[in-house]
C-alpha cells in the first residue's frame, strides 16, 4: 500500500497553483495591466513620460518629416494642457483631460531617420535604450516604418506609425506592438479607380515609374490591379532609386513608349522632382493617338503640391486627409478645423496629411494608455484593438483588431488649375466611404503576416 502525500499543506499549495492557472485567461485584461506599472520596457516614473518621435529630417521625405515633427510637438503641448487643446476638444473619447498622460507630464525626444532603415533603427534604439522612450512614432517611408516597427516589437514598446502607405506595414510585416492610422495603397486603389475611369475612360496605356522599395512596389501593384481591372493596359513599369534627384533618364523613354498615361509611384521630394521633370520634358503637351497624355500621382500631399508648383494642376491622386475637408464636406470631418486653427496659429500655414496622422497617432496612444489605465504595451494594444472613434478629422474610424489598420474615408484630390494662394493647391474631387475603402482581412495583398502577441519587454 502506498502512502499518499495528501497533507493539508500540499492541498493548500495545489489549490493555489490550480487557482492561479484558472485565473490566467483573465490576468491579461485591463484592470490587472492597470495595476502593473512596472515589469515592462521603460515604465515611466511618477512625474513624466517620454515619447520618441523618429522622423526624416534629411533625405527625399524631409519636408514630410519636418511637418510630422511640428504636429508631434503640438500634440505634446495639447496633452500637457497648453495651447488651445486642438483636437482634444473634438475627440470622441473623453479620457484625456490635458494633464499629460495618466497624470505624467509628456516629454519627448527626436531622431532623424535620414529616410534610411538603418539610421532609423539606430535612432529608435537610442531613444528607447538611452532616453527611455515608451512609445515611438514617425516614419514617412514604409521601409523605415516596417524596420522600426520590428525593432519596437522586439524592444517591447508601442510603435504608432506616422506616414507609411505600403500594404506590408499592416500586411505581411504587421506586428502586435505596431499600429497604423494612415491609409494604404489598397485603399488608394479602391478610391482612385472609379475617378480615373470617369476622367480618362477604360482604354488607356499606363507607364509606371516606381520608387524601388516596399511602398513603391505596393503602390504599383495596387494601381495595376485596379486599373487593369477596368481595362487599362500596363505598357511598362520601371523601378527608380529613392532619392535619385534627376529622373530625366527614366522620363525621356516615356514619350515614345506608346503609353498615354504616366503613373508616378513616387512620394515627397522624389515626386516633386519626377513630376516637375515630366512636365519640363513636355509630357503634358503630348498627344498619343489623338488623346491627351495624362499623369496620375496615386499618393498626394499638399507639401508635394507646394514643391511642384503649377506642375501639379489637373493631376489626380488620393489623400488620407485634407485641411479643407470640414469646410467643404461638413461636420462628419469634425476636428479638422480645430487642428488647422491650432496648427496654423502655431506655424503660420496649414498642416499636411503627414502632420494630421502623426498628431492623431499621438492622441490615440495617449488615449489608449488613459483608457487602459497603464503604460504597459499590452494594455495599450488591448485598448486600441477594435477601437471606434471620431472627431480626429477623418470621420468615424475603426482601429481593426485583426491587423491594427485604421479604416476611414479616403479623399480623392486634384491639383487646382487656378489656386488663390500658396496653400490652396489641391481641390477635393470625391470621398470614398469607409465601407468602400475597407477590404477583407484575408485580402491576398495582405497575406503572409502574423501580428503575433504583444511584447511588454523587460
Amino acid at each position, binding site marked *: 500500500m502506498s502512502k499518499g502525500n495528501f497533507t493539508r499543506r500540499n492541498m493548500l499549495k495545489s489549490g493555489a497553483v490550480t487557482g492561479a492557472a484558472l485565473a490566467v485567461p483573465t490576468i491579461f485584461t485591463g484592470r490587472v495591466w492597470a495595476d502593473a506599472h512596472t515589469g515592462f520596457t521603460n515604465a515611466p516614473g511618477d512625474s513624466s513620460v517620454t515619447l520618441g518621435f523618429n522622423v526624416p529630417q534629411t533625405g527625399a521625405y524631409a519636408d514630410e518629416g519636418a511637418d510630422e515633427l511640428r504636429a508631434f510637438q503640438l500634440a505634446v503641448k495639447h496633452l500637457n494642457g497648453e495651447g488651445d487643446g486642438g483636437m482634444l476638444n473634438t475627440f470622441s473619447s473623453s479620457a484625456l483631460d490635458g494633464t499629460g498622460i495618466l497624470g505624467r507630464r509628456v516629454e519627448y525626444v527626436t531622431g532623424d531617420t535620414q529616410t534610411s532603415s538603418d539610421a532609423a533603427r539606430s535612432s529608435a534604439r537610442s531613444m528607447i535604450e538611452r532616453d527611455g522612450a515608451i512609445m515611438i512614432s514617425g516614419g514617412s517611408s514604409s521601409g523605415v516604418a516596417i524596420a522600426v516597427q520590428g525593432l519596437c516589437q522586439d524592444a517591447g514598446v508601442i510603435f504608432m506609425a506616422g506616414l507609411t502607405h505600403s500594404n506590408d506595414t499592416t500586411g505581411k510585416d504587421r506586428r502586435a506592438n505596431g499600429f497604423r492610422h494612415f491609409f494604404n495603397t489598397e485603399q488608394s486603389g479602391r478610391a482612385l479607380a472609379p475617378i480615373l475611369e470617369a476622367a480618362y475612360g477604360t482604354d488607356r496605356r499606363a507607364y509606371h515609374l516606381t520608387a524601388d522599395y516596399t511602398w513603391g512596389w505596393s503602390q504599383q501593384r495596387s494601381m495595376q490591379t485596379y486599373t487593369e481591372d477596368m481595362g487599362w493596359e500596363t505598357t511598362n513599369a520601371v523601378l527608380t532609386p529613392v532619392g535619385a534627384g534627376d529622373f530625366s533618364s527614366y522620363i*525621356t523613354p516615356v514619350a515614345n513608349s506608346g503609353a498615354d498615361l504616366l503613373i508616378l509611384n513616387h512620394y515627397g521630394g522624389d515626386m516633386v522632382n519626377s513630376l516637375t521633370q515630366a512636365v519640363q520634358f513636355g509630357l503634358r503637351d503630348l498627344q498619343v493617338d489623338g488623346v491627351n497624355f495624362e499623369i496620375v500621382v496615386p499618393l498626394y500631399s499638399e507639401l508635394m503640391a507646394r514643391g511642384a508648383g503649377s506642375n501639379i494642376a489637373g493631376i489626380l491622386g488620393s489623400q488620407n486627409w485634407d485641411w479643407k475637408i470640414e469646410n467643404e464636406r461638413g461636420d462628419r470631418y469634425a476636428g479638422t478645423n480645430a487642428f488647422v486653427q491650432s496648427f496654423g496659429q502655431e506655424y503660420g500655414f496649414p498642416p499636411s496629411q503627414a502632420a494630421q496622422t502623426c498628431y492623431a497617432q499621438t492622441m490615440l496612444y495617449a488615449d489608449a494608455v488613459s483608457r487602459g489605465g497603464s503604460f504597459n504595451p499590452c494594455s495599450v494594444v488591448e485598448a486600441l484593438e477594435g477601437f471606434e472613434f471620431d472627431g480626429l478629422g477623418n470621420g468615424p474610424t475603426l482601429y481593426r483588431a485583426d491587423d491594427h489598420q485604421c479604416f476611414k474615408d479616403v479623399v480623392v484630390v486634384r491639383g487646382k488649375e487656378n489656386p488663390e494662394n500658396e496653400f490652396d493647391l489641391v481641390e477635393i474631387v470625391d470621398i470614398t466611404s469607409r465601407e468602400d475603402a475597407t477590404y477583407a482581412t484575408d485580402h491576398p495583398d495582405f497575406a503572409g503576416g502574423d501580428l503575433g502577441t504583444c511584447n511588454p519587454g523587460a
Partner: protein
Amino acid sequence: MEAIILQVLNGLDKGSAYALIALGLTLIFGTLGVVNFAHGALFMMGAFVAVTVKRLLGTSYEVVDETRTDFLGNPMTIDTPYVVSWFGESVGNAMVDWAVPLSVLIAIPIMAVIGVAIERGLIKHFYKRPHADQILVTFGLAIVLQEIIKAFYGANPIPTPAPSAFTGSFDIGQLFGFDPFAIMYPYWRLVYFGFSAIIIAAVFAFLQFTTFGMVVRAGMADRETVGLLGIDIDRRFVIVFAIAAVVAGLAGVMYTPILSPNYHMGMDFLVLSFVVVVVGGMGSLGGAVLAGFLLGILQSFASMSAIIELVPGINQVIIYLVAVIVLLTRPRGLLGRKGVMED
C-alpha cells in the same frame, strides 16, 4: 531612334556637369599635383551662391490686404520684393525671375575669392605632402564646407527655378525632320549644355592662346623644369586654383534649376567626377571632358527600361563598371600620359 537621341541629350547634360567638375579637378591635379576632394564642395557652393542671390533679390516686405483672408480667416499679408518697389514692377520682377543667370556674374568673383582663400589658407601647406594627406585634408574641408551650408540653409533641397522664359521644352525633333513632339527637350537643359560647352572652350582657349596658359600647360607637362626657369609658380598656383573653383562654381550655379540644391550635392557629384578623371586619364584635360560626356551618356542609356530589364541594377553601377574595364585595359585612362600617378 527618338529614344536614343533623347538619352544622348540626357547624357550630354549629366556629362556637362561631370566634365566641368572633372576639368577643374584635372587642372588642379595637373598643375598643382593636389588631389582635391573639396572640389565637389566648390560645385555645391556655386549652387548656393545662386540660392543666396535668389533669396536676396526676393527679400520682401509684407503688406496687409484687408480685402482677402488667409486660411485662418485673418486678413492676408502680401509679400512684395524690395526690388519691385525700387525698380518698378516689370524690372523688379524680371530681376527676381532671372536670379539664376544673374548669379553667374556674382559667382565669378565670389568663387575666385573662395578658391584663393582655400589655396592660400590650406592647400599650399600640403603641396609637398603625400597624396594621402592631401586627400584627407581636402575631404575634411569638403565636410566642413558642407556642414556650414547645412547650418545656414538646412538639409532640405531648395527649389531654384530657371527664368520663366526658359521653362517648358523645345521640339528639337522638328529641326531634324522628326514628327512633332517626337523629341522634346527642356529649354534650360539645352542652355546648360551650351553654357558648359562655352566654359570648356574658354578654359581650353585660355590655356592654348595666353602666355599664362602656356606656362600652366608647361607646368602640367614638367613642373620641375618650369620652376627651374624662374617662373613664379606660387602666383600661378593661386590663379589656377581660383580658375578651377570658378569653373566648378559656375557649373553649380547653372545646375540649380535642373536639380534643387542641397548640402550634399557636391559629394554626390565628386565621386562620379573622380571616376571621370581616372577614366579620362589623370592630368589630361581633354580626357576629363571626353570621359565626362562619355560616362554621362552611358549612364543615361543604362537607365533605359529595356537595358535595366536585361541587366537589373546596371544603371547604378555602369560608371564603375566602365572604370574597371578602362583601367584593366588601359591603366592610364583614355587620354592619360605616361608617368602620372605611376611609380
